[in-house]
């Protein structure tokens, strides 16, 4: 158990590329400073103000029950003294850690450097993540992913490398899974996906299978516990579209349709900056994604498949949950920027398998492989980072400068409709929140 997850040298390179994912923030620091509180953030701040911090942490929000997220985000909001950029920094730090863990997970499961590094920059730097990384309430996704990856790494390390059944490990595993599960509503998938990881038969079957499988089955059971708890809480207490699943067939078919669009279009549609929209496009991307998944699966080593199955299950589960929760927002929202992060995490390992295969000729020269991979990833990453500016110029305008001016500088803002993204909140209520938290 004391054996490191990957060789120590790997940590340094992974750390460098994790830091590289902060480039968009650094390159566009001025524009990020322009960002201002938006949409749900106003609602959350007002709830803290009205109900008190701890009451708010353990309250439901729609179908969401996410005390872990509320702790981080609410704590960050209070500790930053009303400075939005403070929360932005927390978000980007969480992002860098996630990218690091993503690379670590890939290396841990036998991915080579070309696939790992290119997958890291494709997760860390594309502007398709603009909404996730430019709106602090989306810490919900980054934090949930962070704990999923951390749990997957720990689970893999403990159960497949050392295979102990010590209580300490169970406690750690439960902690990590619970942290992810209680970060966002899709956290119910974290435990299920990791349970699948435990049960994946990568070692084959033998006549004495039960002694080998017993710890796995037990671990899978532990993994499920947080998910079951969250599911029960949601079913009993929360309001949301999940109550319509047994409703009319039309709603169910629209949920499935939304799920299909989400699964098919993300993440390649935005990654390739595609410009058409409709069923043909969706089918095209479904075929593209299916080819990537199937081809990569065929090429993947058993050890890699162990993580790939977790991610594909997570991706499909996310598609279904989003179908249930968001179908009413219409199909165009299925490839919203905010949904790219999870899709990238779930799909990029498959792309990494293909990239590894593409650079298989370099395996003879290990050092050359690292150098070529690093140069390629660095070049790709910088190219991706430079694309942020054009998008941030627009984003920071309507997400920052304009509402900030309207709410804090304009002499006579309209009484209603001045708070962007949350039309029901009046200017008077917003000003109360601004004054209380000294929002800047």
């Amino acid at each position, binding site marked *: 158990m004391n054996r490191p997850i990957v060789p120590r040298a790997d940590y340094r390179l992974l750390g460098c590329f994790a830091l590289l994912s902060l480039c968009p923030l650094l390159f566009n620091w001025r524009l990020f400073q322009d960002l201002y509180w938006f949409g749900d953030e106003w609602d959350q701040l007002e709830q803290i103000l009205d109900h008190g911090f701890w009451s708010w942490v353990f309250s439901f929000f729609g179908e969401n029950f996410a005390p872990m997220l509320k702790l981080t985000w609410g704590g960050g909001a209070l500790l930053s003294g009303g400075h939005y950029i403070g929360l932005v920094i927390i978000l980007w730090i969480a992002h860098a850690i996630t990218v690091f863990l993503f690379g670590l997970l890939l290396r841990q499961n036998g991915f080579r450097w070309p696939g790992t590094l290119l997958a890291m920059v494709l997760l860390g730097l594309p502007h398709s993540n603009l909404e996730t990384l430019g709106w602090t309430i989306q810490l919900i996704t980054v934090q949930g992913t962070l704990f999923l990856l951390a749990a997957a790494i720990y689970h893999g390390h403990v159960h497949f490398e050392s295979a102990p059944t010590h209580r300490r490990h169970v406690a750690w595993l439960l902690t990590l899974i619970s942290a992810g599960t209680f970060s966002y509503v899709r956290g119910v998938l974290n435990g299920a996906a990791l349970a699948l990881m435990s049960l994946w038969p990568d070692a084959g079957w033998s006549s004495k299978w039960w002694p080998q499988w017993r710890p796995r089955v037990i671990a899978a059971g532990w993994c499920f516990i947080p998910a079951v708890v969250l599911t029960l809480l949601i079913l009993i207490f929360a309001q949301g579209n999940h109550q319509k699943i047994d409703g009319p067939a039309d709603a169910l078919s629209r949920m499935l349709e939304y799920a299909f669009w989400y699964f098919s279009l993300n993440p390649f549609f935005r990654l390739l900056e595609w410009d*058409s929209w409709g069923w043909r*496009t969706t089918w*095209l991307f479904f075929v593209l994604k299916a080819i990537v998944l199937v081809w990569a699966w065929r090429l993947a080593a058993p050890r890699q498949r162990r993580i790939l199955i977790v991610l594909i299950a997570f991706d499909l589960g996310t598609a279904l949950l989003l179908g249930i929760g968001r179908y009413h927002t219409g199909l165009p929202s299925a490839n919203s920027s905010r949904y790219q992060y999870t899709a990238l995490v779930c799909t990029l390992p498959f792309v990494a398998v293909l990239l590894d295969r593409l650079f298989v000729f370099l395996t003879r020269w290990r050092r050359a492989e690292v150098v070529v991979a690093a140069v390629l990833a660095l070049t790709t990453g910088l190219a991706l980072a430079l694309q942020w500016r054009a998008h941030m110029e627009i984003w920071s305008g309507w997400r920052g400068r304009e509402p900030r001016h309207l709410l804090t500088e304009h002499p006579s803002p309209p009484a209603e409709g001045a708070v962007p993204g949350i039309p029901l909140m009046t200017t008077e209520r917003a000003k109360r929140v601004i004054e209380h938290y000294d929002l800047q």
Partner: protein
Amino acid sequence: MSAVALLLKHIAPRGLLAALVVGLAAFVAAVMDGEARRSFYQLELQLAAPTAIDVQVFWDQGRGFSETNSVHRTLTAAPELVPQRFPLGTGRIQHLRLDPTRRDTAVRYGGGRIITSMGRVLAELPPGNIRPGNDIADLEAESRQVTIIPTRGAHDPWVHVPLEQPLELRYGLREWVAAGGAAFVIAFVVAVVLGAIRLGGSRRVILGHLQHLADAWPRTTLGLGAILFWLAAAVSWPGPAAMGLDASWHQALSYFREQGLQFGRDIAFPAGPWGHLFVYHLLEQHLVGRLWFEFLGKAALSLMLLVALGHLPLWRRAVIIFLLIGSAALILDAWIMFLVSLIVLNVLLRPDVSRTLLGAGLVTITFLGLVKFSFLVMAGAGTAVAVGAALWRDDRRRAAWIAAGFVASFLFWWMAAGQNPIRIPRYLRLSLELSAGYGWAMALTPSRSVFGVALAALAPIGWFLWHHLRTTAARAIIWPMAATTAGLVFVVWKAGFTRADGHVMIFFFYLAALALALPPLFGYRRAFHFLDLVPLACLIGVWCFDDRMTGYASRGAWYRVQNSISQWMQPGQAVAQWKQTAEAERRRARLPHELRDRIGSASVDYINYEQSLLLLNEFNYRPRLVFQSYSAYTPELMERNLGWLQRSDRGAQFILYDHTTIDRRFPTQDDALLLADLPRRYRTVWHNEHLLLLERQAEQPAADLLPRKLHQRVGAAFGEEIPVPMMPELAQWLSLELRLTRLGQLRSLLFAPPSLRIIATDLEGRSFDHRLIPSIARQGFVIQPFLQNLSDVRAFMEGKVASQLRSFRIEPAPEHEEFWHPPIVQFHHLPTLPLQEQNWLEVLTASGITNLSADAYEAPFRPEILQEAGRTVVQVHSPGRLRFPWPTGASQLTATYGLRAAAYAPPSATDGVDFVVVASTVDGDQVELYRRPLRPLDRAGDRGPQVLAIQLPEDGNYNALELVTDPGPAGNADWDWSYWADIRLLPPEAGQK
């Protein structure tokens, strides 16, 4: 010995099973034959006419008569009644109608009957039962026959052929089984004999013996195969000159050859300098040479095909030949493309082929490459890969041999066609330009079923090639073959599915033959391979395209053999008949003397595509570079045609202008630049209802690219109504910035570009739905004035605006929305084309419709000058009014009036119009001088032109005479296409005469 043992001794069980499968396939094929189903019930009429005449039979299934439920037949001149059969299809038939389409020819009718193809009579149609329908002057009854005499100058003569009671024509289970049963028995027996019966206790079945014989006498097998293919597929007796789009370019290719025109300099067309040898219609002077080519050249090509099939197993060769024979009965290109592919794959790419065979292969593909540019692409690309493959194998000598052979052979054929080698680069560039623009202008989308089957047929080929790419050890052989096969299939896919009409059959037949050839070409030794199922998918594809085609293919091949034998056995008689038909066609196409005299021996060109009219009238035809206007579909081709027109040594002295187009394109898109420049350079000197004759003006402005001045640029959404600037004094030019989405680009690359429509609305609110060609729209076209018909163009040539558009909208074709970005619309002035609005009242006098100037016109739509029933008329849609100042000194009014035949031909259904003549006083009082209600649907006598002649009152304080069209008592003006003509106000003495 038991019966079973005896059977097993002489019958191979696997062969029996295979025969069963073949029998079932034949059963399915016969059942699928749509033509057999359509022609199961037939109308047999006894007819005779003194000259060749087209007749058309319509049947009504309860929704009126329509072109869909009709069939044409050409009767040859015959003194006695001859039975003529017309397939009736299925369904409940309520009425029958017979149209003798020549209005000046009487047709004799001796009754008829409705029968099945097995001869069962379902209904008798005695000759005395027929009734006049429209434009029938008389029905003269003789003994057991009736002579149908159309009205002089009739527009649409037809007679009713009544049925005693409606007939239910069903194609039921019994008919299905009868059709399939015979096919099953024949196919099963043949297959059992070939594939299951053992000879003399031998383990080898008859097919095995045949293979053995073929191996023992390869040259005999080769010769027999070549003769069979030549007779049934390759050789064809060419057709005489005729009218029509395809016939026009067929004959034009002959003409270019005769005139020694240079491809690349004088002509740009998808066919090449040897294209005239593979077209159906040709000029008489080329007949003998062409027959020699059919006899010798096609024999050589047939032999080359069999040689290139070389070492394939006998059954594969036989089935491929069978498929290609079937394809040749429907469409020519499939077997030529297959031949080129086979030579590339089995001759050029094989390292062990003799140089003689290699040379023969190169000579063949370069010759075929100069028949059509797409063949050249296949041949050129295949040769390039073959050179590369030889270099990969370090066989530099062979690579050099192939490259040099291709170039030398290409040059030989190019020069043998009378072409200058210096034109080759330009020929290639223009051909590429034509190819690049073809999809934008000509694409037609296939049905989903045809497209789906095509993809299903392609998938195994793709898998086969991928599998060999991955697994082969002989990469230097297999990789070039796989890459070439993929490339060749892609070219044929584009050839078949870009314009997915009958062209899809090229793809299906080609792929079927190729799939059978590929396994042995890639070294597969066993008898069967999964690719052997691809032909079945391809035949299903052909069936999905048109369920008659599989039947046509087999019957067509058989007719071809019969015709070939009879015509080649008596060539003198066949040539005489050919010339007789050509002469008849020439007579039919004869233009009026006035026009012929006017043109004389001066050079003349034709817009748009009916060049055969010039050739059949033996004019001095001077084609422009892209000689059929619908093919000038890229900016470069449009500019080149404009440049051609503007050069005094190139532009023809006369242009015969025909305002037609293809595929319902927007009417000013064909040759748009040239059309807009015509008024500056030509003037109208003659016209009739279909044609304008334009003569080149002595004073020609300097050559330019039609100066345009941008005055409005707007972004628009699809479906958004875009107003057209109303400036009648200036012609408006519309250009569009159209961009494909990436999905659209992908579609365009892999399949065909998506389509657009333009729905234009004129000032009277009428909508016109046209196809918009994006590649032309980028350059632009005249949008204002709106040149919808020939009279609009005539006015345009005189600098007048006859019709204007109020607005238009652009829409993607249904389900093509994802492929386009919203357009940017640009309006330009054409400062070199000043215009003024048409004064319709002047036009009425100028066109001879009236001899007194009218001073007012009122109707829901603008007046239209039309040709109806052989005279020039003005359509005054009811409720309408044409007012004249009171004709002082005139005592009589005569006029012709009526409702256009189209107003009461289904689906149109006017309820009639009242034609009224009114005299108005200065006090506003009105006196009705004449009223005649016409109800053409109810009364046959109300159809066609009617004549009025009335005396005008001498006394009274009248100041105006009005010709009124009134919608009738119901007030319903739908389809009230009422017209006036020959309005004459006569002085008293003329009236008395």
